[in-house]
């Protein structure tokens, strides 16, 4: 094996493959964790865009939910302190915080639904407003609370899979990746598969896709386009709320202004890359997360030899920018072939019954 590494030029490729394999197998859990907000955000996008509503405001929904989840959990933790439970380290505070985050996600997406479906405001403008208002309000409150610090409610603990599973040769790392996770990340796989099945195998899914592709035709067969769009956009808020809760209750335990760092937009790229399908979007989210993990791994544990010299000579800012660069490449390279739902972004106006 080491003989391959010493070959000129091609040897570098083998070294790179070897390094990538190591990074992915060793960092499986962190890759899936980092993919969680992207995948959940993309699911929110699937719900909205499959029914014809563009949602640029996922970033703001996540940010608002992250704040509300953290804040409510901290309040409840003060009111009724409890020891962490055996299962995921749950406390009433964390659960109530999670519910609050989800409610906040639904509330903000109701606002988006009202602006874009009822008022027929341009949907991208509506989403941008949500981003700006969410960043402004959470930034303001964050400054107020940082001068009056509140004890945090802690966070969910990761599930510890039995060593018999994670110690298996070849596939052990996969078990570790998918099982050694907090509850929100664990639920992602279930949600992705469930939404994929519902969208393509259920009556609701057929109706949703009909409304997203050809709302007029859907209306003529008796589907209430406006109502279905409202329902889907608001339910999409559940995913954005979960993604927000991931930031402050699962991955970390505190809130910082602007902590979502553009992940709501990367989620949109994952949605497009995944061709508006839940499983595709999830795989795209894994790709984006892996590129982040790679950047971290090169800084913390660079490979040895020629490859290590090359990689460590690249400024660290390049790796920090990597997910954003990958997003642009994905959008530029794939969008031409990835077709959005035909009525995506078009407000629907019911024809007057005369």
């Amino acid at each position, binding site marked *: 094996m080491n003989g391959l590494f010493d070959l000129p030029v091609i040897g570098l490729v083998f070294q790179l493959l070897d390094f990538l394999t190591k990074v992915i197998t060793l960092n499986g859990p962190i890759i899936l964790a980092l993919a969680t907000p992207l995948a959940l955000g993309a699911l929110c996008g699937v719900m909205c865009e499959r029914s014809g509503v563009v949602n640029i405001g996922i970033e703001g929904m996540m940010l608002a939910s992250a704040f509300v989840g953290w804040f409510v959990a901290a309040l409840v933790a003060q009111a009724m302190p409890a020891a962490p439970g055996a299962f995921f380290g749950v406390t009433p505070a964390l659960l109530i915080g999670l519910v609050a985050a989800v409610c906040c996600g639904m509330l903000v997406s109701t606002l988006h639904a009202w602006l874009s479906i009822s008022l027929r405001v341009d949907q991208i403008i509506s989403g*941008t407003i949500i981003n*700006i208002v969410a960043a*402004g309000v959470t930034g*303001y409150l964050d400054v*107020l609370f940082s001068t009056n610090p509140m004890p945090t409610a802690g966070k969910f603990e990761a599930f510890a899979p039995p060593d018999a599973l994670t110690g298996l040769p070849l596939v052990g790392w996969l078990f570790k990746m998918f099982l050694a996770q907090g509850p929100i990340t664990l639920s992602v796989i279930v949600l992705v598969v469930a939404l994929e099945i519902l969208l393509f195998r259920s009556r609701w899914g057929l109706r949703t896709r009909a409304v997203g592709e050809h709302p007029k035709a859907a209306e003529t067969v008796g589907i209430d386009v406006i109502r279905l769009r409202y329902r889907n956009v608001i339910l999409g808020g559940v995913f954005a709320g979960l993604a927000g809760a991931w930031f402050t209750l699962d991955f970390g335990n505190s809130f910082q202004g602007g902590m979502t*760092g*553009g992940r709501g937009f990367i989620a949109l790229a994952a949605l497009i890359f995944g061709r508006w399908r839940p499983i595709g979007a999830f795989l795209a989210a894994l790709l984006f997360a892996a590129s982040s993990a790679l950047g971290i791994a090169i800084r913390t544990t660079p490979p040895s030899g020629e490859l290590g010299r090359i990689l460590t000579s690249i400024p660290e800012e*390049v790796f920090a*920018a990597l997910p954003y660069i990958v997003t642009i490449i994905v959008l530029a390279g794939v969008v031409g072939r990835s077709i959005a739902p035909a009525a995506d*972004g078009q407000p629907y106006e019911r024809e007057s019954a005369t």
Partner: protein
Amino acid sequence: MVARLRGQLAVPAGAIVLALLVGAVIIIATSPLATGRFDPTLPLVTYWAIIQGSLLSVNGLIDTVRSAAPLILVGLSVGFCFKAGLFNIGGQGQFLTGAVTAAAVGGALAGAPPYIAAPVAILAAMAVGALYGMIPGFLKAFTGAHEVVTTIMLNYIAIQIVAYLIQGPLRAPGSSFARSADVGNAAIPVIITSGGHQAHLGVIFPFIAAGIIWWLLYRTTIGFEIRTVGANPDAARYAGMRPRYLMMLAMSVAGLLGGLAGAGEILGVSGYMPAAYSTNVGFDAITVALLGRVHPLGIVFAGLLLGAMRAGAGLMQIQAGVPVQMIDVLQGVILFFLAADIVVRRVFRIRAAAGGVAELATVTGTYGGTTKASQP
């Protein structure tokens, strides 16, 4: 004319009034955190401090005009793109790349004669900003990648570019923190100074730029074509216009304005660039453009208004104890009411007027790369 003007002004004015009311509710609700006790009069103190700090003194007025300069320039950039049916959220990235260019060129020319150094640094910043703005225009024209996501990604990339350049090649030797060298002779001369408050010559750039943009949009063929593409890309193509070329042109002009704004801040205000230079100008500018009804003259007034809010924020924090981030909240709420103008019109009984957010219906039309405008 007067009636038309009143129709144009009513909704923005109503949006501001409603936003101030919502802001008052937020300030009262959070007053225990800001001042330590529940204080229902705090909004009055807050708003009075903003007015005092921005309009009621020469120092305040200087700060207002200086704070408004980048807001107007980037607001014009966003507004110009709106006219072309494009949504430029990349003001921040264009501003930052322009600013870092001005810092680099200005630092290199610090010893050159002032009448060469400053113009060269400004032109370089404009050129780099235009190139950075052209990237999303090119991507949209030739690949269909929607500019909303690509410009935001380029904002994050610009932050990393600045961090790399200022911590690496541009770092001034001997400085205690990562910053670029002083721009020296490349600094834009200060024209007004009063009690430590200064305004540089660059504060007139936005007004010149607004005139040029107005002329370009309403008095030239290119401007007519840009407005046609924005209003109806299909019609524009059938009429023989070239949407791809116009998209790239519009984004480049937008980037140029952003780069100029960045140069003004570095060469006119700070004199150097720190690695952690942070700005929210790209998002503030969206409020400016929409508050100004996407018209150059309106954008000038909207920029001055929001510039006044920024200028008064410092005194607000000192006198009322309300953090300066309250201005972000107010801007966001203004933007919300501008979009949900039906609320404003109901409250103030304003009849529907043309313009404003309603005319921006083509922004989302090109989402997902399915637009015909992006096809040959």
